[in-house]
């Protein structure tokens, strides 16, 4: 039997945690992701099926919501990214496909992304340097896609701070950008 060893997006055995002055940047490797796109004219059907099965609300543009084990981030018109803990929901994409049926298209996204949770006092100042979003105006529950250091990223405002989802193949570049911004506001 091949002895496979799981690694995080930053090539570590365990999640990286960096604390720079008041800011903490924590890699989140335990994440299953799948995108759900409603077929033409089936947005309401997809939303109703996910609501019934998971109590998950597919919210208005630029928002996200959590329910139980799951959270859904608005990506674009009739399109959402659903996430859950990988440890308990490794089959997220096929589970979602069984729920939405022919009303939506589900795509496995787990290994395409990396995620960093950022929190601390200088959060707003750091994100003002990282991206062109009006981050100071973003409330917990809002989420936007934008560029951070030329990488297309999702910036999700949480109660604790912010989560950044970026392309996994550029995880080190995104991590570097976050660290750099943290030092510049420290």
């Amino acid at each position, binding site marked *: 039997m091949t002895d496979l060893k799981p690694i995080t997006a930053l090539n570590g055995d365990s999640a990286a945690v960096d604390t720079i002055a008041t800011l903490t940047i924590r890699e989140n490797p335990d994440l299953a992701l799948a995108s759900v796109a409603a077929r033409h004219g089936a947005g309401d059907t997809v939303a109703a099926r996910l609501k019934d099965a998971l109590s998950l609300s597919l919210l208005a543009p630029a928002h996200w919501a959590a329910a139980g084990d799951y959270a859904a981030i608005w990506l*674009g*018109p009739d399109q959402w990214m659903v996430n859950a803990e990988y440890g308990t929901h490794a089959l997220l994409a096929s589970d979602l496909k069984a729920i939405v049926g022919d009303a939506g298209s589900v795509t496995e996204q787990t290994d395409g992304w990396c995620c960093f949770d950022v929190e601390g006092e200088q959060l707003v100042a750091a994100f003002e340097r990282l991206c062109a979003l009006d981050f100071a105006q973003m409330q917990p529950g809002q989420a936007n*896609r*934008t560029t951070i250091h030329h990488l297309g990223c999702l910036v999700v405002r949480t109660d604790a701070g912010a989560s950044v989802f970026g392309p996994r193949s550029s995880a080190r570049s995104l991590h570097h950008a976050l660290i750099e911004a943290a030092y510049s506001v420290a």
Partner: protein
Amino acid sequence: MLINHPILGPRDAAEFTYLGDAALIDRPNWQADDAAEAFHDYLYLRDNPAGLHRELWFHEQGDRSWLVVTRNTLTHEITSVELARDVALARGRGKE
């Protein structure tokens, strides 16, 4: 420069890419008798107005929606932003 996205509000223009004249929405009917001539004009002839210009922009680093932006080519002032989907449907596209 900011583009006032109809769904997301004002967003940095760097998140968008530019395609060109919004007249591209009005693709000719390929079955029409004058299709060859119509496609020649569609492909090669563009207005070059000094003033208001309707153009297609793509929110590539955002929600990936196509927009019709009305921009003044003399001042860069943007006077209106619509979802290209709504514009195309209003012009009877997508029903054929």
